[in-house]
């Protein structure tokens, strides 16, 4: 497993909701089109919030990897 291209990693483990999503939104704001951002979150709510935001914002969810205590979200900025 693993996504080949990661331009920025945000380790948001331990951060309560909505911290991980807000960190992703901040990274999308600052990033360039084409870049992939990896967000690592241990917050259960992220599993709903992050994909929902990515869909609404018209960005691309490249992959979601579930580990024992956390999940990794890979999001590409496409616009």
């Amino acid at each position, binding site marked *: 497993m693993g996504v080949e291209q990661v331009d920025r990693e945000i380790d948001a483990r331990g951060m309560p*909701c909505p911290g991980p999503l*807000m960190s992703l939104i901040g990274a999308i704001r600052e990033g360039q089109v084409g870049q992939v951002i990896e967000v690592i979150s241990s917050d259960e709510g992220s599993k709903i919030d992050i994909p929902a935001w990515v869909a609404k*914002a*018209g960005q691309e969810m490249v992959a979601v990897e579930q580990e024992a205590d956390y999940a990794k979200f890979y999001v590409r900025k496409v616009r």
Partner: protein
Amino acid sequence: MPARIVILGGGVGGTLAANLLTKELGRDAKVTIVDPTGMHVYQPGYLYVALGQANGQWLSRDERTLLRRDVDLVVDAAERVDTDAGIVHLRAGGSLPYDHLVVATGSRVVPEQVPGLVEGSYHFYTLEGAIRLREALRQFRGGRIHIGIAGIPYKCPPAPIEFTFMVEEYLRKRGIRDRSEITLLSPLNRAFTIESASKLVTPILEQRGVKIETFFNVESVDPSSGTVTSLEGQKLESDLLVLVPPHRGSAVVEASGLGDAGGWVPTDRMTLQREGFENVFAIGDATNLPISKSGSTAHFEAPVVVSRIASLIKGTAPKANYGGRVMCFLETGNRKSTVLRFDYENPPTPPKPSTFWHIGKWMFNRIYWVTLPQGRIPEMPGDKRRAG
């Protein structure tokens, strides 16, 4: 020689820490507080100024009158901290050596970071901003009002929702509610960050005819057409835009290399020490902690920092930890409020909005000047479970 303690910032956290430190340490410490204006402002009052319910005079006092006599007040801006040498450099040219430093410099609004925000929107995060919004509301004869957030983190998370409820009531009282449309723009997929509070306020917002747009993270404002565009690609036309400006940490934190990319001080969530420093602490808005930026946070953090500094000076084992305690009132209009009390481990379970908490908030607004300097917050119903 007494230990030299320098506190940057005379807000809630700095003022309380200064008073508690001198009380705790007496002649063992020389406490100096540095503040650029020497005036202490009760910032929650801006909301009332914007709605014409308070004037600016009620909101500020001379910082000197809030401090114990044995605290030195230096009215000057701290320009840079040299942590290697343990010196604070002041704008006027002087310098203050320290053994222990408390960074309580708060946050500042940076509306210029969002295109069009300064010209095309209003806010209530400074006194000038609140007065400008008050005048705009007085001129308002009906139309579309949008209330949103142009950057996270920001001070007093419930404030935009409080403003929404209060402006809805304001328009009703002026008899122009039926000619107006109010929309709350939330950056998340719900009305408010904290889920339990969101569940409580959403039905009330709906009942008052307030529309909620979710996942609306403000990207830019076009002042000529009155439109606001979101990062998510939505564009809305508005007749009155009220947007919380983005916030950053203070300039001195940034100039001293003590902050992260947003100017917030990387702080240990329990000890409140600046990461990597034993003798540098941060409280209140200045920290990077993922908790509310509010006066109550600073209020509950200050005693922890005081106890830890006292331990360092006395050479005893430090015991106090910050558990993430925060308390915020949330006005829901119609003379009703609820209250949010939570910490790192326990999310809030806000009571049903009532007149009781509305009066509680008003009382707190009034007694702030008496309770703040000494750290006396009256016990509230439900606080006992958190005792100790």
